[in-house]
Structure formats: C-alpha cells, structure tokens
C-alpha cells in the first residue's frame, strides 16, 4: 500500500529541487514538473477506492497528526493530480510565450499542488490550516505572476480577501481548541457528538464556515474570484477554478459539516439557499461580461452553486449528484480556461467582441470549446447533463419544487451565456471583428492540444460514471459523507495499534 505522505513530500521536494537546479539546466523545470505530476496522477489512481491511515511518527491519533486517506480524499486526490497534470502539460509552451521565469512558475505550481494534497489528506484541523496557507500563498503569487498592472491589482485583492478568510479560519480553530481541547478532527467530532453544540462551538463553527465560504467564493463572498481567475495565466486559472476553489472551500465545508459537526437542519438550509442564490445571481452577472475569462470565472461561481445546493438537500441521491457535479466541473471548467488560453496564445485577445470565426482557423480549439460549453450547460449526452439531472431529481424527491425550478432556470441561463461566447468568438463574429488580423491566425502547437483533447474526451464519456450508481465510481465518497461523524471517529481511532 502506498504511503499517503508521498502526495505531500514528492511535489514539495520537487519544487525545491527545481529551484535549485533550474538555473543550470534550462529544460529541467518542464521535465521535472511534468514527471512529478504524471507520477502523482498514477499514484492517486492506484490509491482510489482504498482506505488507509498513516500516523506520522506513530503517535496515537489524539496527540499526533494522522493522514487519512478515505473515499472522499481519494476522489479529491484524483481530481487535483489529474487537472494539475493536464495544466502542467499545457504550461510548457503557454508559459514560454507570455512569461519569463519557468522555474519560479513550476516551483509555485508544485507548492500549490502539495498544499492541496495536504489539505485533503490531513486529519488534523491545524495542519489543514497550514496546508491551506501553503496553497493560498503560492496561488496569490501565481495570480500576480505576469507583474502587469491588472495582475498585481487582482493578486492584491485576492490576497486581502484570502487572508481575512484564513484569519477567520484560524480564529475558529482557536475557539474550537479552547472548547474541545483537541485539534484532531475525529477527536473534535467525538466531543461535539457527546456534548452537543455548546455556545463556544457554535461561534467557532460560524467563523470556520464563513472563512471557508470566502475561500469557496459563494455569492455574498465572491468579489475576489472574477478578478483573480481572469487575470491569472490561463493554465493557473484552470487549476484555480478547477481545483483550488473546490479543495480550499467545498472539500473543507463537506468534511466539517458532514464528518465533524454533523449536518443539522439550519446548516443544510444555509447551504441550500447560498447555493441557489449563487446559481442565479452569478449566472446573470456572467451574462453581462465582455471578457471571455471573466465570463468563465462567473460561471465557476454559478456552477459550484449547484454543489452547495445539492449538499443542502442532503439526501444520498443529492450527495451523489454533488460529487458528480464537482467532478464534472473539474473536467469542463479547466477545459474552457485552457481553450481561452489557446485563443489568447494565438490572437492576444480576451474581449469577446473583438474576436470571430475562429472555427475556420482553430478547429480543435473551437470544437473542444463547443463540447465543454454544451457539457457545462447540461445538454445530453455530455457529463454535465447527468449531474444536473440527478441534482434536480433529488430536489424534487425532497419536495423542494420551487428551488428545483430555479435550478433549471439557472441551467438555461448557463446555456445563454455560453451561446453568446460561442457565437461571438468561434462560430460567428463580434462587433469589432478585425479581418486583417484574423488571416494570420492558426491552430496552437500540438503539445497544448493534448490536454484539451483529453479533457474534451472526458466530457463526452463522463456520463458513464453514472452506471452502477452507489456501487460505481462515486460510491465510496458518497458513503463516506453520508455515514457521518460516528463512522469518521471509528475509522480514525479504530485502526490505531
């Protein structure tokens, strides 16, 4: 069995190795970073569906730090390392054209991956905070990587919002430690389950959940996301939208709500309505954007609203839908962001109105954007349709007819703003289309097309994961979530010898 510690140690060690030898050997950052991500992806695929707990230093779980690899962590590890791998392949030529220092780029990239892997594996709330800061600080630096005026402005905004969120989380952790006398998630769950929600634990929970909502950029807390995700290099936008928001925000909320505190009716309602507001309002805002990357960034808020919506419903079918939607969003949103990077690579444009007729010059890019857009808008038979269908069926089964109708309206809204992008950029032309410039465009190099084609293929066949239902691909994570705190306590404390 693979030691889970590898997922943290390997990228972190490689980040420092690249920083050391990157100056002497110019090709080494590309090679080492892609090799690392490839190895991590294979390891995470091997680990999927297995569960193991590694006690660092063999301390007992109530004192030491356990690394818990269960079904939910396994799913998140696959998402992180797969999207990281795709984005690393794309970066090889994309970063060469626009940005200067590859060794700094790949160093920060691998540190972000190490932080994210650490968050999903850690079974100790303070280590979650430390890895959260590792991932966040590297991604602040990556957003401002280009050092242009807009990038720096976005990075500073992201940094301030992210820092406030981190401090809320740390304050929540401190209050939780004061109330329960423990930092281990399973031990905290034990205290909460035996003593109930006392007042200090309630306050700590409010601070924690508001911090994680800022990280997840749900609607009242969303203001940093469109700036940060649209200003970053496209390969970084792909991992920010595809994994960073999910892991630092949604994964932590799922773990705390379902495995530590237990989902009460009030918490479920908060998740449900925050999700619903995010779907509708972010959809309307996305429709009004003129920058292609800002449209995609607002769409991230809207689509992740479905995950919160489904988590708020809380039935096993809805949790299944939430996991499926989370996985699908991690496939098609990086695809769209990488395609916006390809368009930027060839045309140097991000404004929708100035582009047009790219389907004649860039057939692969425009076809894969079409597949991604249809998939995200929920058109059958692509993967996005099945996850939204499951979520809406679950809402109807739970007697939430009104919210289900709003979720369908949100899906139609998604289709409308993706049609706008497709018409202006790829299959029609915008108002300020420049014919002269258009003649010199051609398809991007082959190395940038490999991740795009892979992700588009995943969008087409993604629907097969629905087969076997609870016994299939998403069975383990869903079971781990609905089994609740008692199962988590048992699995962490039970296997220590």
């Amino acid at each position, binding site marked *: 069995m693979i030691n889970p510690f590898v997922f943290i140690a390997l990228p972190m060690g490689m980040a420092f190795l690249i920083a050391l030898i990157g100056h002497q050997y110019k090709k080494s950052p590309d090679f080492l970073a892609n090799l690392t991500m490839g190895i991590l992806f294979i390891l995470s695929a091997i680990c999927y569906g297995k569960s193991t707990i590694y006690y660092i230093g063999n301390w007992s779980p109530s004192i030491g730090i356990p690394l818990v690899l269960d079904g939910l962590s396994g799913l998140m590890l696959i998402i992180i390392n797969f999207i990281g791998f795709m984005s690393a392949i794309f970066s090889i030529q994309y970063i060469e054209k626009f940005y200067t220092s590859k060794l700094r780029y790949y160093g920060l990239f691998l540190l972000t991956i190490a932080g994210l892997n650490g968050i999903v594996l850690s079974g100790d709330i303070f280590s979650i905070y*430390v890895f959260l800061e590792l991932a966040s600080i590297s991604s602040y630096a990556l957003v401002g990587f280009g050092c242009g005026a*807009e990038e*720096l402005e976005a*990075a500073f905004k992201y*940094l301030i919002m992210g820092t406030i969120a981190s401090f809320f989380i740390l304050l929540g952790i*401190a209050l939780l*430690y004061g109330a329960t006398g423990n930092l281990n998630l399973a031990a905290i769950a034990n205290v909460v389950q035996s003593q109930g929600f006392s007042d200090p634990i309630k306050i700590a929970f409010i601070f924690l959940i508001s911090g994680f909502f800022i990280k997840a950029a749900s609607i009242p807390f969303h203001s940093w996301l469109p700036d940060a995700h649209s200003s970053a290099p496209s390969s970084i936008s792909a991992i920010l939208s595809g994994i960073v928001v999910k892991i630092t925000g949604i994964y932590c909320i799922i773990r705390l709500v379902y495995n530590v505190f237990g989902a009460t009716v009030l918490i479920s309602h908060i998740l449900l309505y925050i999700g619903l507001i995010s779907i509708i309002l972010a959809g309307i805002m996305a429709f009004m954007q003129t920058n292609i990357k800002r449209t995609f960034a607002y769409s991230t808020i809207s689509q992740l609203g479905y995950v919160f919506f489904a988590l708020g419903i809380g039935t096993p079918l809805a949790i299944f839908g939430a996991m499926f939607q989370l996985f699908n969003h991690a496939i098609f949103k990086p695809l769209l962001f990488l395609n916006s990077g390809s368009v930027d690579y060839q045309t140097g444009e991000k404004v929708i109105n100035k582009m047009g007729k790219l389907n004649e010059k860039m057939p692969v890019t425009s076809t894969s954007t079409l597949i991604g857009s249809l998939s995200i808008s929920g058109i059958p038979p692509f993967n996005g349709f099945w996850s939204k269908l499951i979520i809406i069926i679950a809402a109807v089964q739970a007697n939430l007819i009104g919210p289900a109708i709003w979720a369908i309206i949100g899906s139609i809204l998604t289709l409308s703003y993706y049609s706008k992008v497709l018409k202006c950029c790829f299959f029609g032309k915008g108002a300020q289309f420049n014919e002269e410039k258009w003649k010199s465009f051609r398809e991007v190099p082959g190395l940038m097309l490999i991740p795009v084609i892979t992700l588009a293929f995943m969008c087409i066949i993604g629907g097969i994961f629905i087969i076997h239902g609870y016994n299939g691909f998403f069975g383990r994570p869903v079971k781990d979530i609905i089994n609740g705190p008692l199962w988590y306590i048992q699995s962490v404390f039970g296997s220590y010898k």
Partner: protein
Amino acid sequence: MIYALAITVFMVGLYAVCCKKNIIKIIQGVIIMEYALNFFIILLGYRKGGIAPIINKITDMHTFAAQSVDPLPQAIVFISILIGLGLLALMVALAIRLYERYGTFDITEMKKLKG
C-alpha cells in the same frame, strides 16, 4: 476579560483592512489582525502562576500536570508567526510592484478591473 481585548484588537485590524484606502495601512491592518490572533491563541494556554512546560529528571509529574501551561498553543503560534512572515513578505512585494505600475498607494485609483 482579556479575551475581549484580543477580539477588540482583531476588530481594529479588520476595520483598517476594510475601510482604509492606503495599501500600507491595509497591510498594517493585516498585521494587527495576525498579532491579535496570536495573542488570543497564547491566552488559551495561559494558567495563572503556571510553570514552563519542560520536563526534566527532577520534575514530579503530578505537580507538572497541575501547574504547567499548555504547550500546544505555543507551538501553534510559532507556526502561525512563520506563515505570517511569508504572507507579509508577499504583501510588501506586491505593494512595491503596485507602486511601480500606478505611482500611488491609493487603492481607489487602482480600478483597471471592472465588475
């Protein structure tokens, strides 16, 4: 009561981050918040008349358990200070680059991003 002081200082820092227009003052607000948090965490392990949590050969374990302060918050604060250092370095570096691009520290004049 002293916990209320820590929370008050935290709120002062939050006010500075939310309401000030100068980037340097915002950074100072972040630092104030961080110090207030560290202070709060240290207070959690405080015990009146407590002894340092160090075990040596002559320590009696019963008096140690009854009198020593909690060492875990001290370790947490240590890590938290290190993270704060990295964050501060990044913030100041961004502030310097922003000043080079815009020629001002006033955030109300930095509005190239809309939305």
